[in-house]
């Protein structure tokens, strides 16, 4: 699914246009459209899962309906579709005292931050849009674009709650990038590569070759990465930027309709990206857990998606279990717990790799 492959294909089928710059643009556009469609469908599925899991955890039944009329479908299957339609048809309100340009820009910026990361996520041996040689670094770097968008949203809304939310999210995301990066460094130490495909190739040969089971320090790194990822995506134990009981909706307070939907979509897209990085770095990526069993390209997509789905389920599960942290607790956990443990972890993994590594 690389751009080159599609470009060659287009050149083959449209010989009259071969060498045309527009063809290259098309070749870039096609994977983007596929990814966008994928994100939209995936968001609907995860919103449904979130509704249902949260309800089941609270001994409720969640969205329910009978048939396929205006009753949200059998078992409420059409509930996320109805939500999306509602958001699409809602009035688009821009506050009079808001900074119009920045206000309109923010939802697109945050979505770009989430969307661009999808480019480097591998779903199979050749199923990757751009096989960058610094893939994991690229995803970490692009992921922090979200901070700019959040601050834009908070600042341009001209609203106390939005600004508080934006400031909190900036502090939070900037802080938690460090433990996330530090725990991913352990993976890079072991594999010796920043390339997503090479990291996955290192974990070939069944579940016990996954980096998670490589040495006793890695599970700690995995936990630190996962919790930091929760914080970076503003999921519940760390949802201070949009804590609805304190700040109404944080940085999205003034947004409505489609612009709000973009914030929503990018949150779920970010969940997917961090889960994909965790799956790639620690859980063998698209490799089958049993060596040589069901590892054709089609199944590789299945394995990658099921690992990501499992991690997203854990995120939802944590969200409906753990209450929100205070701001000082949030910073405590980052700087006083994760950072020292992460640094000790790097040291341990480095020594382990030097002494016992291949």
């Amino acid at each position, binding site marked *: 699914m690389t751009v080159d492959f599609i470009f060659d294909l287009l050149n083959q089928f449209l010989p009259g246009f071969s060498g045309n710059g527009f063809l290259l643009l098309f070749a870039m556009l096609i994977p983007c459209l596929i990814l966008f469609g994928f994100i939209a469908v995936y968001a609907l599925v995860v919103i449904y899962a979130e509704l249902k*899991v949260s*309800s*089941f*955890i*609270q*001994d*409720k*039944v969640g969205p*329910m309906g*009978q048939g396929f009329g205006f009753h949200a479908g059998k078992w409420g299957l059409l509930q996320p579709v109805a939500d999306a339609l509602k958001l699409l048809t809602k009035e688009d309100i821009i506050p009079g005292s808001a900074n119009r340009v920045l206000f309109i820009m923010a939802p697109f910026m945050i979505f770009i931050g989430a969307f661009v990361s999808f480019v480097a996520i591998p779903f199979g041996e050749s199923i990757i849009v751009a096989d960058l040689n610094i893939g994991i670094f690229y995803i970490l770097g692009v992921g922090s674009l979200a901070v700019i968008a959040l601050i834009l949203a908070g600042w341009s809304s001209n609203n106390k709650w939005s600004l508080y939310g934006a400031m909190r999210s900036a502090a939070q995301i900037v802080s938690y990038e460090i433990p996330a990066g530090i725990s991913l460094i352990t993976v890079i130490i072991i594999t010796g590569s920043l390339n997503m495909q090479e990291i996955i190739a290192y974990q070939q040969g069944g579940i016990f070759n996954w980096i998670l089971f490589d040495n006793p320090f890695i599970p700690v790194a995995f936990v630190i990465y996962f919790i930091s990822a929760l914080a970076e995506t503003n999921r519940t134990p760390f949802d201070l930027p949009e804590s609805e009981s304190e700040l109404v909706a944080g940085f999205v307070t003034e947004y409505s309709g489609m612009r709000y939907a973009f914030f929503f979509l990018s949150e779920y897209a970010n969940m997917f990206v961090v889960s994909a990085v965790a799956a790639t770095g620690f859980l063998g990526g698209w490799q089958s857990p049993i060596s040589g069993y069901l590892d054709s390209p089609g199944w590789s997509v299945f394995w990658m998606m099921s690992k990501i789905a499992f991690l997203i389920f854990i995120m939802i*599960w*944590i969200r*409906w*279990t*753990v209450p929100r942290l205070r701001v000082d607790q949030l910073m405590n956990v980052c700087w*006083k*717990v994760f950072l020292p443990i992460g640094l000790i972890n790097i040291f341990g993994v480095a020594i382990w790799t030097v002494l016992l590594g291949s």
Partner: protein
Amino acid sequence: MKRYIIDIWAAATTILGGMGITLVHLFRAKNDNVTLQYPEERWPRPDRNIGFDHSNYNVIRSRLHVDMDDCIGCLKCERACPVDCIKIETEKVPNRGEDIKEIGHVGVTSNGSRKAMVVTRFDIDMTECCYCNLCTYPCPEECIFMTGGPNSDKHPIDYEFSEPNRNDLIYRFAKPGSREGMAKIISEQKAEV
């Protein structure tokens, strides 16, 4: 330092414990949930035996019902009603105690009374009804009654009678077409005279 490690250990164990509880609830949701899918499922009707001898106590008053075949049009219930929610109009019958087939009028009540009146309108506005039950006592033929309670053999309990339109809560018990039918019969009588 000791405090630091204890805190981390406590945080990890308590979070895992909480997640264990939520996981148990996640898989037991089907048994534990108390949500009733209302239009599809309903609570069972309440047990009528509430400790009294219920044939003496009309304790369950769900809504008024009129057995039109027994109604003689005496207007006693209309007068008894404290909120005037019952509206009755009557016409004199040509021959007392005889059935009038065209409008479905029954001449003799189940008690044996021969009817002198045809009830052309018997409207009860259930939005105004205060469920006081005062209209049922004066009725000489016992044809107006609250459903449920001792009357459950006459008419089933029905407590879900909300309507999308307010006018649908005005219950029209008179036989349909009886007003026009009686007007026609009376005009025919006048023509004969």
